[in-house]
């Protein structure tokens, strides 16, 4: 800052609005037509030193090293509503500050000034005679005598009311944006909830557990699952993944869920259910913005003779289910040849049937789990189907809730490596109490 001399101060003060030379030249040539005007203009320029000090567009203040006010300009007096005699020799610079400002001055401003000889652009608040506050930007320089000893402190103060208003506005806009984001996240969470069943149907003789891992709080994912009663003694279940994210994917997810439930009531044959879904999605979405899903649909029927359940699974291009037997044998239940749903007019649906005996657990999952980023091993940085199979083998024999808990823990260890939503649904046939004792 130009605090080394009064003339420099004056020039800096005039120059601030936009270039001294240009402005003076423009007025001199254009508007100052009469000789009288020109004379007044020259006079203002010539004896400007005192005037510029007193009526500069900023406040000037000179204080002794202990802060006592030795000189002050009219601009600052006007801002604060003081008479010159109120301040000179009577008040310290810190007396003009608010309590918070005084504290900051004492702990930061003054020590820094002592060390560096200059402090610039510090935001402080002045307290006017009437108690009102005035935000200012303060710059101070220590002036020394010929022998280098510090003699006094020169301080320039800029009115920062506009700047404060601007900052307040910025802060308000940021708070508003944060509120908007929270609203959006609440909306996404609510929408997500409507795409998942509030509770899974209670199937007598079956232990059921499910979990939905949300990868992003800002975007609705496209994974879905459900388990619900059909005709007497049978249940339908499904789990799938609609491609994409966000509102458009959520619309497809919603359509898919309701179509699956309605189609299952109409004809519970799993192959027919997925065929119906394929027709609906294929009619709805094609061309440049294709929408599809991969899904497994299962029809559960209790086995009245031997206990447990029969399940027929139909797969439309979905990762295969994992079967963990009561004896610990664990493998994928392949449904090869099934095609994703919604893209092809006559998608092939693959089906398989299996009996779930007491002690068996079946796990359905979406690929958010197997496509999670993990620490690279041999250049492969995705978790993968083989790793999941190995993991399931360590769990078996197990239960539905133990399986889902283990997968939740597994997803937690991946942390931010899970960049897509993940849904898991496990069903387990508990052993009869008599068997558990053995």
């Amino acid at each position, binding site marked *: 800052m130009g605090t080394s001399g009064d003339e420099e101060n004056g020039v800096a003060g005039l120059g601030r609005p936009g270039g001294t030379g240009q402005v003076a030249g423009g007025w001199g040539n254009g508007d100052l037509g009469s000789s009288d005007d020109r004379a007044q203009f020259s006079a203002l320029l010539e004896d400007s030193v005192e005037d510029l000090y007193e009526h500069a567009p900023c406040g000037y203040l000179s204080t002794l090293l202990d802060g006592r006010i030795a000189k002050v300009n009219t601009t600052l007096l006007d801002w604060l509503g003081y008479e010159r005699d109120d301040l000179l020799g009577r008040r310290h610079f810190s007396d003009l500050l608010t309590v918070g400002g005084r504290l900051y001055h004492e702990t930061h401003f003054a020590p820094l000034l002592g060390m560096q000889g200059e402090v610039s652009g510090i935001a402080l608040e002045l307290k006017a005679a009437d108690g009102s506050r005035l935000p200012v930007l303060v710059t101070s320089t220590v002036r020394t005598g010929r022998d280098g000893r510090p003699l006094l402190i020169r301080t320039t103060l800029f009115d920062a009311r506009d700047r404060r208003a601007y900052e307040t506005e910025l802060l308000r806009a940021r708070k508003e944006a944060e509120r908007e984001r929270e609203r959006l996240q609440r909306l996404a969470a609510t929408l997500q909830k409507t795409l998942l069943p509030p509770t899974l149907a209670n199937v007598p003789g079956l232990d059921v557990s499910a979990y939905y891992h949300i990868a992003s709080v800002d975007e609705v994912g496209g994974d879905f699952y459900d388990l619900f009663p059909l005709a007497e003694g049978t249940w339908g279940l499904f789990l799938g*993944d609609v*491609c*994409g*994210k966000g509102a458009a994917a959520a619309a497809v997810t919603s359509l898919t869920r309701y179509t699956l439930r309605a189609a299952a009531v109409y004809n519970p044959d799993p192959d027919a259910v997925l065929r119906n879904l394929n027709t609906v999605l294929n009619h709805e979405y*094609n*061309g*440049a*913005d*294709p*929408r*599809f899903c*991969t899904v497994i649909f299962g029809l559960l029927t209790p086995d009245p003779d031997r206990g447990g359940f029969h399940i027929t699974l139909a797969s*439309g*291009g*979905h*990762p*295969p289910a994992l079967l963990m037997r009561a004896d610990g044998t664990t493998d994928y239940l392949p449904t*090869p*040849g*099934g*095609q*994703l749903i919604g*893209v*092809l007019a006559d*998608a*092939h649906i*693959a089906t398989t049937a299996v009996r779930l005996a007491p002690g068996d657990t079946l796990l359905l999952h979406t*690929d958010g789990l197997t*496509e999670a*980023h993990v620490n*690279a091993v041999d250049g492969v*940085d*995705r978790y993968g*189907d083989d790793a999941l199979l190995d993991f399931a083998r360590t769990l078996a024999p197990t239960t539905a809730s133990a399986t889902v808990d283990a997968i939740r823990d597994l997803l937690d260890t991946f942390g931010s490596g899970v*960049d*897509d939503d993940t849904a898991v649904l496990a069903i387990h046939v508990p052993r009869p109490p008599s068997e558990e004792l053995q």
Partner: protein
Amino acid sequence: MTQRLTLRTRTAPAGAVIELAGDLDHHSAPEVRAALPGLDLRPGQQLVLDLGDVTFCDSSGITVLIAARNHALTAGAGIALAAVPDPVSRIFRICGLDQVFPVHPTALAAETAWRPTAG
């Protein structure tokens, strides 16, 4: 972790070829989709997607491959995939796309195998 996608298109006698390298996912799929309308593809030709350097393909990647297929079919052209890496061909098998896209070991093999259809 994530490999940025790069996309190159060229024109072969049999039709347009798109060469992809890197991760074909939620973030990069729109870029491929945007390249489709600008392709020089005439009826009877074949669009080849060379996936030789694709490191990852998720459901968004599959979506854009299907969009490419729809685009080619609308133009009266065919579509083929070339040099499909193992992890990608595994995903294709799971979702049954191996039965939808003709697959060739290289882009050149895809072009050689192409027999222009009448029209």
